[in-house]
């Protein structure tokens, strides 16, 4: 299973963290520090796997972001690379040519998309279309509520003027 997913920028800034196994806040910081030290220093044409504390970390760089997933020793590294690619493609489709800034300002959306892709450290949906459809449906739910809310608050705001 996948133990955690990390998105780290080339400068070492964290863009997303998702933990499927229990880690305390302290451990999380430590993991990030260790892994970004290991991964960011690796050259561009090396293999995408790193052995780390008895686990394996599969990472891939897209634009300025490193997508990292930590898996068990016996898991399939190539499968994880595909999952990463899958996630990037979905993000790309959702944001329309995604860039790091999209993920910075929509950090919650990146999480929601990841949650549709993985659950409990396993891949749950291998169809890009389905994920896109599900996310769109939830977005529209939220949008509807937002419109409603803003109209009410507008009314009140005007009333209290």
């Amino acid at each position, binding site marked *: 299973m996948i133990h955690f997913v990390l998105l780290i920028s080339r400068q070492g800034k964290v863009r997303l963290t998702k933990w499927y196994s229990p880690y305390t806040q302290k451990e999380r910081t430590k993991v990030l520090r260790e892994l970004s030290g290991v991964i960011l*220093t690796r050259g561009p044409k090396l293999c995408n796997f790193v052995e780390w504390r008895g686990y394996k970390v599969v990472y891939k760089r897209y634009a300025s972001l490193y997508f990292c997933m930590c898996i068990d020793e016996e898991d399939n590294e190539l499968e994880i690379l595909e999952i990463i690619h899958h996630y990037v493609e979905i993000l790309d489709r959702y944001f329309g040519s995604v860039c790091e800034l999209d993920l910075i300002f929509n950090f919650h959306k990146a999480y929601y998309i990841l949650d549709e892709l993985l659950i409990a450290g396993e891949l749950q949906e291998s169809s890009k279309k389905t994920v896109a459809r599900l996310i769109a*449906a939830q977005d529209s*739910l939220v949008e509807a509520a937002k419109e409603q809310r803003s109209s009410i608050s507008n009314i009140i705001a005007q009333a209290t003027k």
Partner: protein
Amino acid sequence: MAGGVSSSSIMETLFQRTLEDLIKGLRLQLIGESAFVSKAIEEIRREVKSTDPHTKSTALQKLSYLASLHFHDMSWAAFHVVEVMSSSRFSHKRIGYHAASLSFHDDTPVLLLITNQLRKDLASTNEFEVSLALECLSRISTPDLARDLTPEIFTLLSTTKIFVRKKAISVVLRVFAKYPDAVRLCFKRLVENLDSSDPQILAAVVGVFCELASQDPGSYLPLAPEFYRILVDSKNNWVLIKVLKIFAKLAPFEPRLAKRVVEPICDHMRRTGAKSLMFECIRTVISSFSEYESAVKLAVVKIRELLVDDDPNLKYLGLQALSVIAPKHLWAVLENKEVVIKWLSDEDPNIKLESLRLVMAMVSESNVVEISRVLVNYSLKSDPGFCNEILGSILCTCSRNVYEIIVDFDWYVSLLGEMSRIPHCQKGDEIENQLIDLGMRVKDVRPELLRVARGLLIDPALLGNPFLHRILAAAAWVSGEYVEFSRNPFELMEALLQPRTSLLPPSVRAVYIHSAFKVLIFCLHSYILQSESITSSFPDNLVLGVSELVLKKNMLEGSELTTCEAPSAHRSEGFNPRNQSYEDLSIKNGGDRTINHGQTSTPAFSENIFTYDSIINLINQVELALGPLTGSHDAEVFERTRHILCFIELIKGEITECLVQKGKTLESEEMKASKIIKLISDAFSEELGPVSVSAQQRVPIPEGLLLKENLDDLETICADFQVPESNLFSLGSPYYGEEVGVSSFGLQDKEESEPSNEATSLLTEHRKLHGLYYLASEKNEIVGNDYPPANEPKLQVNPNNDTEDLVKLTVQSLATNKKPNHAKTRPVVVKLDEGDLVTVTAKRPETKDDLVSGAVREVLLGSDTRTATSQSNPSDKSSSKRKGKEKINVDRSELKENLGDSEKPKHENPSSRKNKHRISGKERRHKSAGKIGEEREENGQKGMQKSSHRHARHKAPHRSDAPLNVVSQTPVIPDFLL
């Protein structure tokens, strides 16, 4: 008033910073980030208490942002998280659930409050709300939550909404882990989902079984037919990979299974275009079906394809696969040795490391010398990290099983000496251990060992390298312990006392001093022996010398008065080790002596080596060098120095007198000094041997000694001294800097600090620069089972031609498999009866017994009838299923045939063979079930003793009952796939 409250909340709403404001603000703060964040948190603390749900949820969202990316504590907001979770609006609820799965853990106190909320959302008609609750449960499930929500999960496992059901299936794994009794309720439905025609459901449920089976494979054997059907029928690579993993785990438990699945696996391996699936097939075959030769051969062919691929990932995995297969099928590695050695000089440290492991796997008694030679040369050219990996693996391989593969120990010892001199060598501890260990275990190697030690000690340059200090300690010890093999003990003494020893840490220095003591004793003892024999045989000779001795004695007395001056005169004559010419001379002398005294194994000294002169010099030298150390602050150094100085004090007066007297009176009275020397010399010449690891256990505990059994309180004492966690990853050294990165760093920074619309132009530039890392602009619509294109497959021109030489060299060395290297017979290596040899336990698949698998076994075995009925029940109309069933039927007859004739052809009667096999299979299972039963009973008892948990106590009798059922039921298991 209500109006006041609402208006204030409106004000908050209107002036609240949004998430975007927060993020933008944070990005502008280049230096004062922490101040900004603490101000933001202050705001959040206020806002999150607001009665307006929107304000509250926005505040929580901001907090989640800070917690997940800036690692700020948000446990204080746990209650607010619960509030937002219970909001009726989906947008708020989503924020709440996200915050919960981010920050809640088993000890969060408010967890008790969310049970009802989760229950409500799990039963919601809005499938997205159900999904939120499931996601959250997968992260934070506790035993209580899992127990209370099991009925809801049970319902969801058969819901018609695929979207929800697949999530429920994945979450079930976490529920089982926390509340094993849920298995009894949910397992049946989980199994039913294996028949689902929906690929996502199937993927989810197979994923769950893959995880479950990794904990206790044996329990899931009854489901083998279902998995087999999926293996044969499924076209989904995600599912196939998981099923392969399951079979890899089941195979050791049921030999007949392997026979059935090997063919389909090979089919997949041949046919698939997806590298991930192919690799999984390879891995399954080499790890679990390695006795099926044809399959292994196919796998090796495929591994070869990976090895020669340009994609570093495939290369790496190919090497890894080879190292898995190496212990059982070394030929596979040997077949690919050229490639393996080639990757030893790859630019990727991970790949280099893997190929190094493989090269070491090829090492045998006949080629260890050649391979080590090549590798040591190679390590000289490598970066420090890899150099030490090489040295470490040579040391480890050569010392395996008490130096099993070493025949020529003289060679090995000199190799150790050579390795110590490699500039990057940091394996001091290991080399130290081996030098001493070899000395104690292998008698025949001691002369060579001493020669190597001398070489190390005498080189003043080595003292400056802290990584070598441990090795020097070993060398010093060797020189003291085996000084009798030395050709020139005086030279050793000089080396041990040279001024640069002040660079050594006290612990090593103490070893030096003690060794000096041993050398001194040896010299004195030899001198006495020699002079005694001389006295008895050539008295005249000595008488001649007496006058000289007397003179010397006078001088010595003089020097005692002015300790500082006289000996320093000696020193300046040539005791300074830095004096190169002197050293050369002594080495030459040593060499000459070798020639003169040839092959004699007994100490071969020229007659004149232990003269009165030289002994006195020696004593003075020791006194001079150690005198200053009496002021040492290190206890060990101080004490050892005192020992040696006091000893000198003790004998000094007498040794001269004794000799004079002897010369004069010729009646040799037993002198105190020579007695002492003999005594100590005897003590030192007592041979030291290796000590068994378990030696301490054999020492009986003295009566009346009370050992504290419980050392729990030790932990509290030691809490402050945390042992630094060993970092398993040793290659992440900063030596592998990025080449491309530096040039574009500035660009990156700029991009960071500019708002998004302006970034687009930069982005295109960046894309030009780093096209490698972007998605291909034309979208590849093939649904992603194909392996994504690898990093630019630019074939790099081999940078160093050394590599090719190396390949040739090593190929040669590998080719000389049967080199008659045994001209020299292998010396005796002392081995202890126990503890030394690594006990090679037969790798029997062990059944880890935990509660989940216990429950699973109960459900599966108890519901065999159900499995049978569901199979014969045509309620599920999917055609694939029927096909599967037919297949299984066909298989049955096939397998019978297989069992009958192909398995053991030497047996004449196929039918009796078949029966026998069957019976034995049953018996085996019976036995294992019985054993498991015992284990479980133990577990149950332990549970009762240890846990004060009401729940566990309540369940204990039930648990210990269960295995009995299992045992009685085992014979009912149908023969899978038969």
